[in-house]
């Protein structure tokens, strides 16, 4: 299925957010995720089902003011 990750389209096989992240190489522990604008905690990624066209944001610490 196709999902949008950080504004880029990706084809993934995994059915959950945790699977999709692993598949796309997001292995760093220092990431936080949101699905369609809602926060998904680390613990809930494994149960979070994905559907076609879902928008996923994967954020990490960055310099800020």
């Amino acid at each position: 299925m196709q999902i949008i990750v950080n504004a880029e389209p990706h084809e993934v096989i995994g059915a959950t957010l945790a699977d999709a992240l692993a598949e796309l190489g997001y292995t760093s522990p220092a990431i936080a995720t949101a699905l369609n604008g809602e926060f998904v905690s680390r613990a809930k990624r494994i149960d979070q089902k994905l559907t076609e066209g879902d928008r996923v944001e994967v954020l990490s610490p960055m310099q800020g003011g």
Partner: protein
Amino acid sequence: MQLYGIEIASRLLLGTAQYPSPAVLNAAIRACGTEIITVSLRREAAAGSGAGFWQGLQESGCRILPNTAGCHSVQEAVTTAHMARELFDTPWIKLEVIGHSDSLQPDVFGLVEAARILCNEGFQVFPYTTEDLVVGEKLLEAGCELLMPWGAPIGSGQGLRNPDGLRAMRAHFPDVPLIVDAGIGRPSDAALAMELGMDAVLLNTAVAKAGDPVSMAAAMAQAIKAGRTGFRAEPMPRRDMAVPSTPVLGLAELT
């Protein structure tokens, strides 16, 4: 100074963006003795781009104040706060809800709404606001225990555009920690903020974009200390006319 029950000695809060290198950032942190540094969240490249930066911050020993910079809606800011809380393992959030992309002026209506949601969820909110007293009251009602009025637009280095507004805030909220956030350009701006009775100053660009960021970080810390001491020493009132400081009594007649 106590911020959400935590005793903080340094009255300088430092942003971590726009430094020439991570080494200069770390040296600036040490030079000014800050205990609180601000950070952000941005899209991760699959290679683990944020992990190295995060590790460096942890080694600084500073408390982390994540921001919601760039958020223009309540939902964006609230979701970003949730992500920051998990990532940085802190209830602290510097809440920015931006109203204009050119002036980066806070959307105070969205700010109050987001603050209410986040405070109810147990966040300890540092709201980036204006000097408006009514907005300040609404933020306190929402559960904020401190206020962060702007000095001037973010990154502008204009100093304090409205010192009278900040003075009025100090008088209106005598027991609320007030931190000037944004607009500081020079050490004298930071000193003035402190002389007006602000409790602390949050700055970033003024240090990061100085010719010598490490020296500027030290200068800012000195200015903030001097301004604070000056405020506590109760400056004399201004006078319209000259008043001789040398006694007139006993002046010789030599004509």
